């Protein structure tokens, strides 16, 4: 099953702990926090697409999926041609000017190998970032909404219940 980082932008406070944590692990942050004028903020990293365009265009097969479903880059194969960066609809893979190869989020492969959470998820103080089987996360959210609806339905005066909330 594929594991992903789920982003709950309602909880994000733009503190950038995720960026700093990623930078600490990889030298450069592979996650970025975007802030909007209405104070909404959202952290964004590689989505590890099910049908990843980057993997399809890589001429030397430097990109592959690992057991958790993360799209990871083999630095020994990568030739820095930037094709993955061009193909990615989010512009995630970036060129590492120093090593002349691409650099992208690997869901912290080395941390997962040690049984740890990805660094950004570990840090995020608000749990705006959650790591797990994407369907589990989505089911949990669906379940919460349904429970709330049931809660409202249980009250005699539905309209009033809405007003209280």
């Amino acid at each position, binding site marked *: 099953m594929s594991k992903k980082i789920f982003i709950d932008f309602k909880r994000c*406070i733009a503190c950038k702990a995720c960026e700093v944590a990623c*930078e600490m692990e990889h030298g450069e942050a592979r996650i970025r926090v975007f802030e909007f004028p209405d*104070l909404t903020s959202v952290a964004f990293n590689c989505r590890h697409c099910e049908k990843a365009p980057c993997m399809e265009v890589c001429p030397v097969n430097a990109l592959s999926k690992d057991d958790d479903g993360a799209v990871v880059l083999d630095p020994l194969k990568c030739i820095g041609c930037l094709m993955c960066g061009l193909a990615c609809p989010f512009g995630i893979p970036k060129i590492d000017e120093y090593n002349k190869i691409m650099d992208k989020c690997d869901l912290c492969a080395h941390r997962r190998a040690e049984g740890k959470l990805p660094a950004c998820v570990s840090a995020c103080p608000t*749990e705006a970032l959650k790591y797990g089987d994407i369907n589990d996360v989505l089911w949990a959210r669906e379940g919460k909404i349904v429970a709330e609806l049931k809660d409202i339905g249980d009250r005699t005066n539905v309209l009033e219940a809405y007003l209280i909330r």
Partner: protein
Amino acid sequence: MAEKLVPVVCPWCSVGCRFYIVNVNGYPKKIEFDYEHDTRNHGKLCPKGVAAFQYLRHPDRLKRPLKRVGERGEGKFVEISWEEAIKEIAQKLKEIKEKYGPEALAFLGSERCSIEENYVLQKLARALGTNNIEYVCRMCQSTAVAGKGMVLGHPGLTNPFEDILKAKVIVLWGYNPAATNPVFFGQYIEKAILDNGAKLIVVDPRKTKTAKYADIHIQPYPGTDLAVALAMLNVIITEELYDKDFVAERTEGFEELAKTVEKYTPEWAEKVSGVPAELIRKAAITFATAGTAALLTNEGVNQHANGTRTVMAITEMMVLCGYFGKEGVMSGAIPGAHNGMGAGLMGIGPHELPGRFPLHAEEHKRRIEEAWGFKIPEKPGITYVEMIDAILEGKLKALYVMGTNPAKALPNLKKAEEAFKNIEFLVVQDIFLTETAKYADIVLPAAAWFEKDGTAISFERRVQRSFKAADAPGEAKPDWEILVMLAKELGFGEYFNYSDADDILREINRIIPPLAGATPERLKKNLKGCMIPCPDENTEVPRLFVQGFLTPNGKAQLIPVEYKEPGEVPDEEYPFWLTNYRLVGHFHTGTMSHRSKSLSKRWPEEYIEINENDAKRLGIKDGDLVRVETRRAALVFKAKVTPHIREGVVAAPWHWDFNYLTKDVLDEYAKMPELKTAACRISKVEG
């Protein structure tokens, strides 16, 4: 490569987050999250916590004692040996004491050093015969300590963090935890709001990341919070929303308070604070009818020359509604630094004994004198900001500064700089050459927080141990070790017989009753620590005021409060309200955070927020350079034009040069300077 994980307490804010430093042969490689232990942060950290190892090996770290060769403030020094440095300091302190008396000496402790180190420092000051011993609480929490002290008998956070999850209403007043305590915000406050449906009331002139979640956002002019609080008291009393049984049984002074606030109607408050009367009324009703409420205040309330009054009025709102002693309620203020509460409890105060007993609490004084073997000086010392005047008047000749940076933290910095230029003898021990250290005669290199064992007390009243996780660079030494060396040279060796931090903590256990049970053994075994008061090794106190308040008669004192303006208000010449705030990525005067590359990269410079309508009127566009002038000084900032600050108010983060602009007028109870409100004028820098 021997890699070791050493458990530490975060060195920045006062949430008390725990994590590990990954130590490779004494070198701090990075941090690692602690998801194994039962911690208050549940493994989580904010960006400062994550970056906390970066400043440790910064090339600017002080590695050897320095002696000034250039002018004061110039920053020219030569390296000297420890022996030379300590000898010279001891000699100079003795000389000044003999010539001018012990009151010509003063000491500054630090909320960033351990309780052990602060304890040793105040003991040394007293051994030298002076109570001139202060720390930055004066400019951070002193009004909260005084105000809550008078009303409740104790300034501490009343309940453990979890209790806020059950609050029906949360009021965050002059407090932006999403930026200043992100882990407390994310793990507790935000969950209460988003998961448990708590209502949020925010009082702040800016629309902060915290205010984004508010149901009611009150935006007073900076420092007029007192008007809003008095009007809320007025509504709670006139509309009879208070808890009558609670008021009758557990409080004193209700009639007098009711009479006093009669005139402070929401309509009156609207004129003073600019907050619509109806919004104040709505907030008061929401707060008073909630059933359970948490009310947390911070610097937006504290750092004003009317701060103590505001704290009293806000605290009395909690009292009237009977929101004490249960789950789901919380009252408190939040010290800025990781050991803000701990340093104070050590007696780092000109009118206080260890344990925060008043200087003249005879019974405690005698008890401590007996244990120490020498007399505690009779005469109370002078407070932080007053020390500057004392230096300029020639009364204070020597200042000994441990781990703090007054040359950037004090109000009206030009005047403070004048004082540091003219002092006879200045010693600074720190981890970097701070702005203050540049004026020093002798600079001593200290070990950083992760380079020693030490104890800190978080804002939850939680005592926790942090362990040595890295070797100090060069010849840097833990602050307590430096102080012990100096004490021996001064001839006080017999009173300072410590060989490690544990020795000092054991003495603290004996001297300070609320800490009797926070023994080294207990804190090492249990990383989560214990909540003070902990009178013995099996006891802690999660909730305050369950039985009674800590005032002499056990009743909350509803002291009548009259309105008073903040230290400076706008007029025709200086028409804007100027205030400041903190950024999530920086800490205080930036000694450590400006030197953390992941932080300074993301939060690189200062700027000033100005409302879009004001900007339009003045022809200022986003990114323009603007000159901001107060009666003390003028600074140039980049303008950030935004709708998220109320019209008529401008605000800048304070981690850079802000304090050149502030005024050194003091709160009459706590001697807090007016750090958060000034009157200014603004003009675009042309060209």
